[in-house]
Structure formats: C-alpha cells, structure tokens
C-alpha cells in the first residue's frame, strides 16, 4: 500500500516538502513506517528515535497497524507554548 505522510517543522524542512509517499506492505505497522521514513526521507535518519507518529490525529505506537485510508503524520518533538 502507498501511504501519504504529513511532515512538519524540521522534518518538513529536511524533506523540502510537506508530505511524502511511502510504499509499505499491506498490514504494515508504525514501526515499519518509522524505518522506511528514516531510510527514505533525507535528514530523518539522525532523529528517527525521536519521531512520533499520528494516525487520524492521535498518537500511535510502533505496534499500531496502519489502516490504508488513515491520515498519517510524522511528529518531531514538539515545541509549542
């Protein structure tokens, strides 16, 4: 399946775009997405362990299976406030 992943802040800046498309096997989980992002998106390899991911606007752990039509986002450490 082909997943579109939103990018923000340093991830967006490193990739030079606000979203990327990642090819994953059907039924893949967030952990697989994390490894694919680190390998495929410039600049993310160095911070792969600090990235969180959101599925449909909620944080999702590495074991979460990715629904094919979900809204997926890559969340670098936040710095609001």
């Amino acid at each position: 399946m082909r997943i579109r992943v939103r990018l923000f802040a340093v991830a967006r800046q490193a990739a030079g775009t606000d979203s990327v498309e990642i090819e994953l096997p059907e039924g893949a989980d967030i952990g697989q997405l994390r490894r694919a992002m680190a390998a495929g998106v410039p600049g993310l390899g160095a911070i792969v362990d600090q990235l969180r991911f959101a599925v449909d606007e909620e944080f999702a752990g590495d074991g979460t299976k990715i629904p094919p039509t979900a809204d997926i986002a890559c969340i670098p450490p936040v710095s609001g406030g």
Partner: protein
Amino acid sequence: MIELTTDTIDVARVIEAVRSPKAGAVVLFLGTARESTGGRAVRSLEYEAYDAMARAELARLEAQARATWDLVDCAIVHRLGEVAVGQTSVAIAVSAAHREGAFEAGRWLIDRIKEVVPIWKKENRADGSADWVHPMIDLPGA
C-alpha cells in the same frame, strides 16, 4: 474554549472567557517571546501546527483538566505564524472555586502542551540564522 490563531492574542478576552460568579480564583499563564535564548539575540519566533490534531489534543487536555480539578472554565489560545519579541505565543486561563485547583491546572496544562500538542517553534535570530526548536533532538550543525 480552544483557539489557534495567526492574530495577536487578545488576553482580556481570554480572561473574560473564564470569569464566573462561581469562581473564587482565576489563573492566567502567558508564554511570551523572549529577546534571547541561550545567549543568542532573538528577532521573532515562528509557530507551525498540525492544525486539526493540535485542536484535538488541546481539547483532550482541557477535558482532562476540567475533570481533574473541577474547573469552572478553561480557555486556551495558541498563536501561529510569526510572533515578535515581547508578544504572547500562548494564553491559558482557568477558573475554579479555589486557588489550589486553578494554579495546579494552569501549570499542568502548559507542561502538557509542551509535551503532546503538535505545535513547533522556529527561532529567527538577530544574526539572520533560524532553527526549529526540537527539545530532545540534537540536530547536526544546530
């Protein structure tokens, strides 16, 4: 009340949103843009959000604070885009019957916002450099 806005935050409006005859205490927290961090002069801050998720996370935090401290009311406004030095980047107001709950809820809300709400800050410095601030990340060259 939850708001994300690119306009100047109207602090008086945030306070009015939580005032109530049921409340004996109001606590307001403002985050304001400092002129320097880590010894480097700052020109402005710039905030970016994952808008829909930021609103959803703020609403979850508000609900949790209301339940934990029996708040009378709660209002959170976060600014996005460029924020000049001295201006307000976030305003959090809570009202409660007594001051203990109001202080604890206000402190908890800003602490949690800085942990879980998908909003990011970029520092635009006086020397022309600019960097995203990512706590926990030690970026190569940052």
